[in-house]
């Protein structure tokens, strides 16, 4: 899921950074639907337009945030998705 949307983001990242840095973009398939101040606003717009379907909401930043769960990293909890 979301492969097409993630590819669109990567392919257009520089352009998105230029116009929407630190905003949340809503992408469906290979189309940019809009940019929003908060993730919640983007989700509400996505639900309104597409219903309960997968769509991508992503903050436009140059560097990807890496999330850490030491319990997962150390194998104390299962890290598989």
């Amino acid at each position, binding site marked *: 899921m979301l492969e097409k949307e993630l590819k669109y983001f990567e392919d257009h990242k520089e352009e998105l950074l230029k116009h929407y840095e630190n905003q949340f973009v809503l992408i469906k398939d290979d189309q940019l639907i809009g940019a929003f101040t908060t993730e919640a606003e983007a989700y509400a717009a996505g639900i309104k337009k597409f219903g309960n379907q997968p769509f*991508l909401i992503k903050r436009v930043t140059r560097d990807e945030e890496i*999330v850490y*769960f030491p319990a997962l990293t150390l194998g104390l909890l299962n890290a598989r998705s």
Partner: protein
Amino acid sequence: MPVHNRFFLQGNQIGPHVLMQTGPLLQVEVSIPSTLAQLLTAQNQAIPPPVTGWALIDTGATRSCVDSKVIASLGVKPIGVAVTGTAGGPVQQYRYPARFRFPGEGLEIEFSSVIGVNLAGQSIGGRDIIVLLGRDVLSRCVLIYNGPGGFFTLAF
């Protein structure tokens, strides 16, 4: 700021060992986000009942996460991915919007996104862990872990 003390008992007495063994646990109900609930209501569709289980406060976790099977069972679709650092290198996990309610604390949190991970089989003292509460939640709370006293305090 409401203050909640969660005592861990061994029989009728406070048991510091119980807290040590279980860690700071809270009962939790995982529900669909309210935006999705409104959509389902407008479409005359049934709203799935919340899934109940336990949340472990994990001060080592950057962000909160939910068992991916639990959130998928509610019909919530992913809205993105997060890159998580693991011993085997970076791994992508889906992000989901979700609502957590903590009935014992009267606390409800609407997350624009939490990370879905596989917590299946993670059980502490017969309590199934379906949520890890990370520092995104703790950034809005005061958490005091009293080991000798066998309790923790959460204020928000």
